[in-house]
């Protein structure tokens, strides 16, 4: 038996899905979190049937109109795969909006059961819904549910009703005889009549205790948080607080303890190996694998604290307000208001962020968003940020915050450029998004999210990072003739010879060392590799506690070992953050853009932007701190000037083309 969960965005479908199946799909307190369907088996505690009952969680939809293609996954599934029963999750706090979609579901001739969700919130507001009368009017059973509650949540009764309904007929309460949805004008007429029907039903069976026109506490908070002037500084403050707690205070405190255990394990294995093992093999296992992976994993506490705080923010409903704040800027540069959603998702991982662009109807806006989403620092970039913030800026919280804001600035600039190159500046899009109510964030949900991200981080460290570190160490230890590299002659290694051509290109950015180039290159496999590779090439096993470093390198300063100043460190950080993230993200861009020209253009744009930002930071920073420009200023400036000229030429060419089209029209 197959049961589909359908309903408006943010009605509680995924929370209900997790409760019914025992899965832990990501739940965000804003619309657009689920972009593909999730499938799971109903927990046996809910069903005494022997056959497996499959639950399908569909992305939220406000309508199944054929003229809203972004909701096609839900429409195609329900119409094409014909589930046995549909559970329509209706938000009890927003009945009139929810029932529009309900009336469409009831016309599909598939039995429907309504889960009247968030019943607790309705009760708190002292609103009353005459459930039995509403059920009779709609022609389907209604079960009151609270999907966030562990007990007494109505889910048992909901499943019981769904199983009873299997095979039953479903009569639609609303009809528009003589009109057809295949005609756009008639479809609009049908929608108008449908709204009128829903309004009549809600008017009869819902009694609200508070007039919706009166301003409540939620509106008062939004008046400040989503204010067109105050919104940005408040967002800045919130992100600074998040990064300060995770990178400056709590995070490093926990990381110190954790790294201590890793160091003990390292010492244990080193003692076990002793003098009886070949130095090359010993170094590969200790420095390459344990040291490299251990160093990346050492940032785990910082990452987990950060994800915990971000999950709390998301669950509170604040992230939707961020979408509203950013929307004002995005619309002015030709982006869809929906573009903010993939970018917010992209702060976790660029790949689902890029894939979330499929909900954007306009092709140019979708491709632009897919190209720009990777500029948001993702979870994989956090160890890189944490490393540089810790080593060069005394764990300052402003480093991480700055990276996010630079990312947003680059996105806005990038969107402006793309609009001038490939679009029509006069065309604007409009975006309507439902703002969920503020709520006290669930510590349990944030904790689960933190554990999930932490597990993902550890698995990634134990797989791709382990393999990369081992490969880097081997390439660093041997020459092309497979001779062991002698001490002091690391530049003769395989790794150095591969990285040197790239290092030459990076001289104008302030970090022309082959070690840094090698780390940046391995970062395209997985961004965390930057940290792991730096550890291997510099022989650093601990970026957090540097007391042991002096024994190996003669200095307790990692900056001195790496040969970087604060300015060049910031430049290197920006290069790694704002060039293409990883090959998997490029693959996601390829899948969503469906155009070679856009894909290669996007990659070139990302490289160009990362190089330019890094160049400007290094050269201007060096000018300010030393009074003169840095090494490689002239060739770097020439290269950047060529890039800028090319962009300006393409913008001008598009402008001439638009003018010519208007003249002939």
């Amino acid at each position, binding site marked *: 038996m197959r049961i589909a969960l359908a309903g408006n965005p943010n009605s509680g479908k995924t929370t209900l899905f997790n409760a019914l199946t025992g899965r832990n*799909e*990501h739940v965000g307190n804003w619309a657009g979190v689920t*972009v*593909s*369907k*999730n*499938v*799971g088996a109903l927990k046996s505690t809910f069903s005494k049937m022997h056959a497996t009952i499959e639950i399908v969680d569909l992305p939220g939809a406000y309508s199944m109109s054929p003229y809203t293609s972004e909701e096609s996954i839900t429409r195609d599934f329900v119409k094409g795969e014909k589930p046995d029963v549909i559970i329509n999750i209706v938000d009890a706090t927003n009945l009139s909006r929810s029932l529009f979609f309900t009336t469409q579901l009831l016309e599909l001739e598939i039995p429907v059961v309504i889960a009247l969700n968030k019943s607790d919130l309705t009760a708190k507001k002292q609103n009353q819904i005459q459930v039995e009368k509403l059920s009779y009017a709609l022609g389907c059973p209604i079960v009151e549910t609270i999907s966030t509650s562990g007990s007494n949540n109505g889910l048992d009764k909901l499943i019981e009703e769904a199983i009873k309904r299997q095979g039953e007929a479903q009569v639609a309460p609303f009809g528009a005889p003589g009109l057809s949805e295949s005609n756009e004008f008639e479809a609009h007429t049908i929608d108008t009549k449908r709204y009128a029907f829903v309004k009549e039903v809600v008017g009869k069976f819902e009694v609200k205790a508070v007039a919706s026109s009166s301003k409540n506490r939620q509106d008062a908070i939004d008046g400040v948080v989503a204010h067109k002037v105050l919104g940005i500084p408040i967002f800045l403050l919130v992100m600074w607080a998040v990064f300060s707690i995770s990178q400056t205070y709590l995070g490093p405190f926990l990381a110190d303890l954790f790294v201590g255990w890793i160091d003990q394990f390292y010492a244990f294995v080193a003692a076990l*190996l002793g003098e*009886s*093992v*070949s130095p090359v*093999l*010993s170094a*590969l*296992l200790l420095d390459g*694998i344990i040291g490299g992976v251990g160093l990346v994993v050492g940032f785990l506490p910082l990452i987990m604290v950060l994800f915990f705080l971000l999950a709390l923010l998301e669950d509170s409903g604040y992230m939707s307000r961020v979408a509203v704040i950013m929307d004002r800027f995005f619309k002015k540069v030709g982006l869809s208001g929906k573009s903010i959603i993939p970018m917010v998702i992209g702060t976790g*991982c660029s*790949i*689902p962020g890029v*894939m979330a662009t499929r909900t954007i109807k306009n092709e140019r806006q979708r491709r632009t968003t897919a190209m720009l989403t990777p500029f948001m620092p993702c979870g994989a970039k956090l160890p890189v940020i944490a490393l540089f913030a810790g080593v060069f800026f005394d764990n300052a919280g402003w480093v991480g915050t700055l990276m996010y804001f630079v990312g947003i600035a680059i996105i806005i600039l990038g969107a402006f450029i793309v609009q001038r190159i490939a679009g029509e500046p006069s065309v604007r899009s409009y975006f309507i998004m439902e703002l969920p109510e503020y709520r006290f964030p669930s510590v349990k949900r944030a904790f689960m999210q933190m554990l*999930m*991200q932490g*597990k*993902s*981080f*550890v*698995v*990634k*460290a*134990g*797989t*791709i990072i*382990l*393999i990369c570190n*081992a490969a880097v160490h081997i390439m660093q230890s041997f020459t092309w003739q497979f001779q062991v590299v002698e001490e002091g002659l690391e530049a003769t290694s395989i790794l150095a010879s591969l990285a040197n051509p790239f290092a030459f290109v990076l001289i104008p950015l302030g970090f022309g060392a082959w070690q840094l180039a090698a780390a940046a290159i391995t970062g395209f496999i*997985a961004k965390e590799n930057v940290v792991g590779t730096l550890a291997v090439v510099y022989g650093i096993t601990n970026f957090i506690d540097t007391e042991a470093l002096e024994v190996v390198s003669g200095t307790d300063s990692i900056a001195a070992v790496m040969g970087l100043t604060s300015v060049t460190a910031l430049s290197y950080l920006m290069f790694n953050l704002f060039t293409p993230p990883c090959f*998997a993200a490029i*693959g*996601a861009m390829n*899948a969503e853009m469906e155009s070679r020209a856009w894909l290669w253009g996007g990659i070139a744009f990302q490289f160009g932007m990362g190089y330019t930002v890094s160049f400007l930071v290094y050269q201007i920073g060096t000018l300010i701190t030393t009074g003169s420009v840095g090494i490689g200023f002239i060739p770097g400036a020439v290269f950047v000037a060529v890039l800028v000229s090319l962009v300006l030429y393409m913008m001008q060419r598009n402008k001439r083309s638009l003018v010519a089209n208007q003249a002939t029209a």
Partner: protein
Amino acid sequence: MADFIVIAVIAVLISLASYKLWRDKQNGVKCAGCPQAPKSGKPSDSCGCQIK
């Protein structure tokens, strides 16, 4: 003898990592450790990270 043991340990670690990456790829997951990766061995289109 000690050298062979260390080589074996390194080979096992790399093999396990490679196997995990291969199994994820078979399940259609492109990123090792993706929190949305399907738990079972069956391919699933429920993973938001899958690239088709």
